[in-house]
């Protein structure tokens, strides 16, 4: 007589729960997630910091403004008074969270407040662009891979053309054109100075990087028995794509999200640094690096601080991305010999 098997004992935890458990066991990934959480939380607190702690408007120039340091009222932009009296230097870090914790930029704006607001912008653009890239890439890859034939040929050639352009060159070209006139594509309208413009541009240039591997995966999948069975049973294509193909490529698409977020953030920073990304007075980490370029010798913190944050956040996203990949696709880890 065999012991009765309870339903609880028979039930598998499921692939998502297993993946989550795997991810939580990965210390690097958890540490990276914690770092990201801190960065996101701090960035979300930007208005709180600016309004209630630093009492400053980080988007308003304070060229003739003053502040109090060690009981003395000093100009935020301090003219040189020694020698020939050439040049003006923004106030340096006060290490006082109440005002100019990291000093001022060349407009007399609080760098700390701008960093926090810049984090919101950079994370928003990075994450939104990554989601859009993955969504578009998954759609394009799945449709092209499954339908094959003329659709696949056309889609693949278009992806090849986009792929053939150096990423930054294409992004700069698109930005320069769209920053002048904005984007008008049927019902979709994005104004020239909008934050969504870099989102759309970055998403568009990275679509092939998601679509091509997914298309390859679908090409393999469509010859599998369960797909053939679904076809043989007369299931409509849309249902097969939705119920059979998509669930099998979704883990790969999810793995792309943190990695593409990191890539999108780097691209946004580069475009903003080149003045073709986020437009003033909005701030992103890239624009703050650019603002600090003219202060490298006198106030390097203005450039170093956003630079460190970009490096920290993208590194954390990459480590987290690796963790997600290992959790969702253990075979990749095995293939990688990890």
């Amino acid at each position, binding site marked *: 007589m065999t012991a009765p098997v309870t339903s609880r004992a028979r039930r598998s935890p499921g692939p998502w729960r297993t993946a989550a458990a795997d991810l939580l066991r990965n210390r690097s990934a958890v540490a990276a997630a914690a770092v990201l959480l801190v960065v996101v939380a701090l960035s979300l607190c930007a208005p709180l910091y600016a309004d209630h702690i630093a009492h400053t408007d980080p*988007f*308003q*120039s304070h*060229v*003739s403004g003053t502040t109090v340091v060690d009981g003395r009222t000093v100009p935020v*932009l301090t*003219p*040189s008074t*020694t*020698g*020939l*009296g*050439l*040049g*003006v*230097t923004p106030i340096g870090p006060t290490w006082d969270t109440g005002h100019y914790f990291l000093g001022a930029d*060349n*407009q007399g704006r609080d760098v700390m407040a701008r960093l926090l607001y810049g984090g919101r912008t950079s994370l928003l653009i990075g994450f939104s662009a990554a989601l859009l890239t993955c969504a578009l890439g998954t759609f394009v890859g799945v449709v092209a891979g499954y339908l094959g034939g003329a659709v696949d040929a056309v889609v693949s050639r278009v992806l090849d053309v986009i792929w053939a352009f150096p990423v930054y060159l294409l992004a700069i070209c698109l930005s320069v054109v769209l920053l002048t006139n904005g984007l008008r594509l049927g019902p979709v309208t994005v104004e*020239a*100075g909008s934050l969504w413009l870099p989102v759309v541009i970055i998403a568009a240039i990275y679509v092939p990087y998601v679509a091509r591997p997914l298309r390859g995966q679908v090409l393999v999948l469509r010859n599998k028995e369960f797909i053939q069975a679904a076809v043989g049973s007369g299931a409509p294509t849309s249902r097969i794509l939705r119920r059979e193909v998509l669930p099998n490529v979704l883990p790969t698409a999810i793995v792309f999200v943190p990695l593409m977020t990191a890539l999108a953030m780097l691209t946004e920073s580069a475009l903003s640094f080149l*003045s073709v990304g986020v*437009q*003033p*007075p909005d701030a992103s980490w890239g624009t703050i690096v650019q603002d600090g*370029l*003219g*202060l*490298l*010798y*006198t*106030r390097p913190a203005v450039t170093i601080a956003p630079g460190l944050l970009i490096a920290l956040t993208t590194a954390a996203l990459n480590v987290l991305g690796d963790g997600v990949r290992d959790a969702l696709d253990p075979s990749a880890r095995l293939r990688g010999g990890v």
Partner: protein
Amino acid sequence: MSRTTRRTAFAATAVALALTAAACSSSGDGGSSDPSASSSGSGSSAFQPQHKGGTLRLVAKSAAGTFDPQVNYTLQYWQLYQSMYDGLLAFKKVGGQASFTVVPDLAEAMPKVSNGGKTYTFTLRKGIKFSDGKALTSDDVVASFQRIFKVSSPTAGTFYNGIVGADACIKKPAGCILDKGVVGDASAGTVTINLTAPDPEFAYKLAVPHASIVPKDSPEKDAGTKPLPTTGPYMAASYDPNRQLKLVRNPHFKEWSRDGQPQGYPDVIEYSFGQTVESEVTAVQNGEADWMYDPPPSDRLNEIGTKYASQAHVNPLTAFWYLTLNVNMAPFDNKLARQAINWAVDRDAVVRLYGGKNLASPACTVLPPGFPGHVDSCAYTKGGGKTWSAPDLAKARELVKQSGTAGQSVGIVVSDDEVNKSIGQYLQSLLNEIGYKATLKPLSGNIQFTYIQNTKNKVQLALTSWYQDYPAASDFLNVLLSCASFHPGSDSSINISGFCDEGIDARMQDALKTGQTDQKKADQEWAAIDQDIMTESPVVPLINPKIVDFTSKRVGNYQFSKQFYMLVGQLWVK
């Protein structure tokens, strides 16, 4: 600090200047600003042979294009041409206010002016040779004036359009002869120039490099990177715009006039291109270069002004940085809206963004201090006064409200260099503060100046600057704000605001006429015109800039000409 490409802008200047009347002399109006900050240095009047020799090493981020003196329109090379090319007349090659004085150069004396100010007769000096060994003759002079039109010199249609026959030359440059306009007499060694109307500023126009005398067999096209023979103390030995320009002594030069063309000190002048501005500063600090052309970056200014103060020379420029308000487009087709901007802008803030009060002064008028016609007055300063003291934001907000333009969008077009962009960001913030929705459009410096001139681009507000061609009030007021300078749809419409007031235009013509007989009275008229234009508020004067020349420790005899800036050939390195 953007002086790099400014003179390229002059290509668009003085469109259809209807100038009139007799020969002119130097303006010489004093009133120099802030002498304490100036280090113009009058230098040594007598040549000091013990300092002769050596190699002077100059550095710049980039070359300035063609080396043809009749084509190039950049400050970078106009400065060099002072030691290379000569015209019939020249600006006196000394430091200080006297550098605005026009003196005879290839001509042995100032011209004999007759026919009611329409005929200028010059007698050429004898014994002058080009660097290729050929003697200078009146034929070369005639050919050089023809060549101004044949190579379509940027100022052919503006500075020299008053010469008899110029109209035909402008229409058909290749066949330009000017047979009744410029007449040479080889046997007498004279040249006669006939004008269609008197031009009180003609002497100035003969003293700029576009009127340089070059050999008659010079190519009838832009000489490009093949420098033409010179008459001055230096000639070009080689020119590679990507690498270096090398000047050596002209073996046929003998000093004929210390005022007009003094001999130079260094044996060789090497001008290297391709460095970053940061590395230029470091090179001068380390003594690897003797002078940098480009303005030092803002984060090195303090270092230069303190650790290297003895090597820095600060001089005021007869120039102004200003905002153009498009009087033909909303919201600035409303005078109250324009005045609101003038009340709102904190000139001290702009001075700070430019590099501090020792590098710029707040401006209230179109004519810079120390310039003919300038009178201290300030229509838009809190509490009133002759000089600027503070903005009046409350009044600005009130005017915006009264004008009914609050909430309208305003696009601000600036160059994308560090200083222009930071001023642009300040303006954007300010305009938002007083009730507009401002957007900032930074454009490459290479295209911004032509972009803002073309009305098709619908520029509402632009940041730009103007540096004098020669010391005359008309070079600012008539050039920048007359009806004749406004050309809708053209890239060469230097009246960027599109301001055209027939009454003021007529008064400008009257002032030009007055200048034929009474320059002092004319300058008073120009001062009144300046103030009346400010009441209409088509522009917002921001600052009058200064220039920093950073030289190496070994450089001596620094002299600053107000007309063409540092006298390169007069520097000594021994």
